[in-house]
């Protein structure tokens, strides 16, 4: 029988060799650019990787509520604020963390807006561990790229991200499916607690932002389907404990007046373009008035952002 130490050494050696092979395979089977055609997942949100360095001042994170409610190019047109929306469908906070870290690699946003619906999306430790593992070894995420790999593309060179998304992460939708609000924000003292795991993630986001000189803001965008007073109370409590600014646009006294007959695309679940304009206009005004972000119309970004806005508007119309 082999001695335990010898066995452990052999296991460690085998696993180390496997890790090296996985790293090498991950270098090959990874999108070489950040466009959909290159196999990039969530290309709209990953468009931030193609933005020139130090050009984004506001970063939006969250799930579909996020990419439906914040329009970066409207922020630019109305207030001269450069922003990017990294919202993705069903975004869990471990995925939010990935985008936060990715964004700060080339950017130094002054403000990070976290849409709060994602904070109530639970997940297992296993799921977050698997996600982290995929970040270390992207081959687990992008293994299917073997299907589109041509012989000349099998190399270990680093990816170069040059693709830019015209809508800067916002996903345009102008459908109208009216909602019946039915007093969805009826007052209550009840609190829907944030899970321990998600609480820890938000705390980490705050610390990360502080470390990088950014301010984390929590925003609950209007949604009769996903939001209620219990959730509001839960986030309010979390915001107070973590000393974060929290804005709930569902509250009756909210400065954003949503017309539920016109401003939602799916019966109150998400904002449509009209609703997103109201949310974005409020946020832009707030950011400028509080001095958190300044207009960048006068620096060299103007030409490129105006052109992107023009393309976005032409596609939209």
């Amino acid at each position, binding site marked *: 029988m082999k001695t335990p130490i010898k*066995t452990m050494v052999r296991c460690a050696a085998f696993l180390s060799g496997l890790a090296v092979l996985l790293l090498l395979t991950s270098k090959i089977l990874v999108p070489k650019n950040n466009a959909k055609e290159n196999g990039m997942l969530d290309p709209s949100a990953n468009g931030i990787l193609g933005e020139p360095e130090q050009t984004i001042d506001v970063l939006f994170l969250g799930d579909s509520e996020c990419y439906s409610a914040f329009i970066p190019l409207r922020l630019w047109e109305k207030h001269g604020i450069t922003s990017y929306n990294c919202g993705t469908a069903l975004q869990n906070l471990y995925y939010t963390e990935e985008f936060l870290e990715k964004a700060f690699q080339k950017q130094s946003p002054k403000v990070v807006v976290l849409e709060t619906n994602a904070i109530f999306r639970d997940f297992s430790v*296993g799921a977050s561990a*698997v996600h982290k593992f995929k970040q270390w070894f992207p081959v687990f995420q992008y*293994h299917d790229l073997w299907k589109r790999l041509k012989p000349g593309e099998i190399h270990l060179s680093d990816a170069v991200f040059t693709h830019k998304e015209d809508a800067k992460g916002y996903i345009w939708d102008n459908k109208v499916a009216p909602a019946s609000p039915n007093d969805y924000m009826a007052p209550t003292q009840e609190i829907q607690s944030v899970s321990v795991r998600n609480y820890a993630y938000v705390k980490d986001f705050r610390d990360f932002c502080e470390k990088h000189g950014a301010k984390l803001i929590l925003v609950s965008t209007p949604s009769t389907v996903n939001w209620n007073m219990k959730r509001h109370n839960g986030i309010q409590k979390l915001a107070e404990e973590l000393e974060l600014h929290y804005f709930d646009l569902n509250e009756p006294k909210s400065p954003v007046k949503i017309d539920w007959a016109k401003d939602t695309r799916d019966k109150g679940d998400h904002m449509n373009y009209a609703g997103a304009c109201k949310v974005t206009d409020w946020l832009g005004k707030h950011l400028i008035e509080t001095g958190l972000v300044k207009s960048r119309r006068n620096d060299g970004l103007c030409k490129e952002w105006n052109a992107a806005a023009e393309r976005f508007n032409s596609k939209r119309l």
Partner: protein
Amino acid sequence: MSFALISAAGSKLTSCFSAEYLFVFLPVFLFAYSIVPDRWKKYVLITASCLFYCLVSGKLIVYLLLTAALMHWFGIWLDRLQTQMKDRLSLAEKEERKAIKNNFAAKKRSVITLAAMLQLGTLLTLKYTGFFLTNINTLLSALHSTAQFEIPSFLIPVGLSFFSLQAVSYLLDVYRGVIPADDNLPRLLLFLGFFPQIVEGPICRYRQTADALWNPQPIRYDNLTHGLTRIAWGVMKKIVVADRLDPLVKKVFTDYASFDGGVIALAAVFYTVQLYMDFSGAMDVVIGTAQIIGVALPENFKRPFFSKTISEFWTRWHITLGAWFRDYVFYPVTTAAPMKKLTTRARKKLGNHYGPLLAGGIALFCVWLGNGVWHGVGWHFIFFGLYHFALIYSGNLLSPLTKRAGSLLHIDPERIAFRWLRILRTTVLVVIGELFFRANGLWAGLAMFKAIFTRFSLPALNAELLSGLGVDWQDLLIVGVTVGIVFTVSVIQEKGVRVCDALYRKPTVIRWGTLYALLLFIIVFGAYGNGYTPVDPLYAQY
């Protein structure tokens, strides 16, 4: 350990192929198992097994616990009757003995009947009540009656079909005196609920695993490496082949009316491949897991597609189920007194070949009806069972004729070409059976089978057709390559080589290189992650 396993596995532990099982549950279990003293290892096994079942099936663990308790109770009851009989016999006069034996035999028969009815009755009630009442309602409608039964829906615990058969086999073995009753309830619970095997088997006998599980061994290096290799091999079959074929199979079997006979025939072949890779892959993971802790579970597959007849196929496919029906249905029916009388009379009139086939046919019919019913709810499962009954029975009836025809035509049955022809014929018959097995009902199966002959046009498998089926040519390429690898290994195994042992005798470079290649093959070519829907093990539903 409990907390670590629960919190780590979360609620997504669905099968032995889930990432939560392979990367969290199993490693945490093995760690806990390896660090506790030997005398506690069995408790780690029981805890892990109960936890696994709770995570997979939640509160339905009650069924498992109840089954174990009933096994325990009825087993001891049977044992006591045996002891009482022996005591009475030792005191009895010679002429009283027969009466005492008959009296106790009747009592034991009553007890075992009650026990088997409880076990199998639960299984049939939970699985078949809806089917039975639906058919009654259809009959009532046909008779223009307005009365209709309400169809109840039951939550069926995972693995019920498997552990119920294990429980019945234990009780029948105690009844027959093959094994003594076990007075250790936790040991019985572990025998029934050992976590790798609870979902899809193999269906073990008490003598095969109970003691080994109750006295588990420390993890040895060779067991660990062999077990992990076998697990990886099983994962490859499931993730690379079975799951990759799933969209195609699902699409064609769901929407069969939209496809021509060529595509339906192809889908039947692909489904047979999928089912084999899925089920045998699961068995590799289960047996590999048990191997790590030094427990040898019985094999459930022995390269079934090398079978020359359907009878042989069923000695190589789902072996433990076939053995269960053989030992607890076929033999008892054929050796029952009325059957023996029937055989004796038939032998006189029909001769030595056809005579025994009469009683044997009745027993075989019971086996295949039971096999069909066991597999699932629906007339197509019953048809599936009876289809195999018809094939095997007609094979038995015709065997003198075929032998005579072979000798007249000077066909050497041992010639390779003839052997491969028989293998091909058996495979085609198996594929037809699997078409009915997978079809969404008997009528759908018949319509699909008919379409193979009436709408067969073998359309070019162009890219458009493939993408309509949810797969592309790369998918089929990788399925072909993997099936080729499995086939090559099977050929080597058919020659009596134990591939894993042979691999571990090779130098480290070759050994590690092979393992790295296997693991990278699974990681790169597996049908998992974005764009793929995880597919639950196919036999977990039966």
